[in-house]
């Protein structure tokens, strides 16, 4: 038996030389790695005096200006604007995660308990939004909550014409929940599908009430799905741009909007890069947290790819 043959038998089906992966690694170093590196470097540079870009001069001022404002007369003071943006991003993403989870658990359980034909159709129905552009879905929900849309018309008829949803933080939240709901339903469903309902029946036999069964038997069993759903909703919600831009009105509601502003009209690339670095750090911190929680509560490693 040749050495090569032994290797093939011991290996995993389909394996080839690791060198085959090299072109992908090189491409991604250029397409992903270097852009992240450039972002980190630019965040420590000065902004260009005119137009876009940076001046090659080391200056951590972008990080300082996250918290400190320099007044025109040279004095400095505490600046709460960007902290508020950060807080907003966390708050909106957190509320979105909780609301989507509250609605996703019932529908995921419900779909999992239908007969096979119905289940496949319902599964397709919650998967379809994945294939539809987020821009179009955000536009759709905007038309619904617009002052001239159905919600606005109903509120007008009920005498609440002075109350507007569109261009408020509530509108941003509705948009985020709408867009990210399928991201929560599908992972919870894949856990619920594997749930053995004889366990619930056993609990009923032992005298448990519905609420107890739900809380003590069902919820712990679908916990891996809920944890995956939290990661899949919270992370993209934290970096979301379109919902606060199209629905929230104000242009500086969430981190992504401020980053976009600094690469657009404000033309302060280093500050935009500093915010990007902050967003990367927050995301990775959250990933570590969710992996730790996942490992602690389910004993399995939460994997993102």
């Amino acid at each position, binding site marked *: 038996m040749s050495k090569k*043959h032994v290797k*093939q*038998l011991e*290996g*995993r*089906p*389909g*394996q*080839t*030389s*690791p060198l*085959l*992966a090299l*072109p*992908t*690694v090189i*491409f*991604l170093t250029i*397409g*992903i790695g270097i852009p992240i590196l450039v972002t980190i470097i*630019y965040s420590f540079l000065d902004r260009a005096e005119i137009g876009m*870009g940076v001046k090659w001069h080391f200056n951590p001022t972008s990080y300082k200006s996250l918290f400190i404002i320099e007044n025109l007369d040279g004095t400095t003071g505490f600046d709460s604007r960007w902290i508020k943006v950060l807080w907003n991003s966390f708050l909106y993403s957190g509320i979105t995660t909780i609301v989507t989870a509250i*609605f996703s658990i*019932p*529908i995921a359980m*419900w*779909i999992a*308990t239908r007969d096979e034909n119905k289940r496949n159709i319902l599964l*397709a*129905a*919650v998967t*379809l939004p994945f*294939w*539809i*552009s987020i821009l*179009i*879905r955000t536009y759709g*929900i905007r038309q619904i909550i*617009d002052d*001239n849309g159905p919600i606005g018309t109903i509120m007008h008829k009920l005498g609440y014409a002075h109350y507007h949803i569109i261009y408020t933080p509530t509108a941003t939240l509705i948009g985020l929940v*709408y867009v990210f*709901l*399928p991201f929560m339903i599908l992972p919870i469903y894949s856990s619920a599908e594997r749930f053995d*309902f004889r366990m*619930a*029946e056993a609990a009923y036999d032992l005298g448990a009430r519905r609420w107890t069964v739900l809380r003590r038997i069902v919820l712990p069993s679908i916990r891996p799905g809920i944890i995956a759903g939290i990661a899949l909703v919270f*992370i993209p919600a*934290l*970096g979301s*741009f*379109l919902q606060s831009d199209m629905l929230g009105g104000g242009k500086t509601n969430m981190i*992504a909007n401020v*980053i*976009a502003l600094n690469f657009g009209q404000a033309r302060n*690339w280093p500050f935009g*890069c500093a915010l990007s670095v902050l*967003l*990367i750090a927050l995301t990775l911190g959250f990933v570590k947290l969710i992996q730790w929680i996942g490992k602690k509560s389910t004993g399995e490693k939460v994997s*993102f*790819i």
Partner: protein
Amino acid sequence: MTTSHTAPKRRRLVNLRNFPSFTAVSWGVLFFLYIPLAYVLFYSFNSSRIATIWQSFSLHWYSVTFHDPDIQRALSNSIKIAIGATIFSTFFAVIAALGLLRMKRAGSAFAWALIGAPLLIAEIVLAVGTLAFFRAVNIPLGLVAMTIAHTAFCIPFALIPIRARLGQLDNAPFEAAADLGANEVQILRRITLPLLAPAIISGALLAFAISIDDFITSFFLSGPGSTTLPVFIFGMIRSTVTPEVDAISSLLLLFSGVVLISSYVLNRRRR
């Protein structure tokens, strides 16, 4: 008597798998998911100039959409980028999935971090980073820049089904081929790739869908005259909203629906 309070007051046959109100909540969620899409579809047949005010049924805005040269140009840009990104990202995903199987854990950690990055890091961060990098090395904004960026973030999506399929493969055909003296290239061509073909097609479809729907990356990397369809629609929504937005959105909805249903049918037939 102490047993009376434990005895059920009403004896009714109940399905223990149903939790009260779950059905109502579920229909509510489905309604919430689909009502905005149905609304856009309905209002695309509006004859009015204003998207939110219904006048009468008309195909006027579809005719406007089909004859709009800007939309045709944006659509053709979107398709060009999506085809390029699909081909390149699927290729990179296949070779990465195969090559990384035999790499040591420490060596592949960096590769997996790069591949997984677009799933974790906010798209806007990668988009502005790529913009800064491309400007620094004088890569002009436009179709080429967008195709490179789309390829990068489509790789993990193309890779997911391929990797899942690789994990399910049985070692027997590989052992048999090796026993019969096939070399690595022959095994790759005659065994691995044919077995992976369905997963490669799924991955390519996913990459195409992700690329053609992309807004943020294209928004920052599109140069003058190279707008994609989502960037163009975003501009339309920003300015005056006519039912043309609803018409073009409905066409895209229909397209997504057809893609999903055909991939669903393909999957069923395979089983």
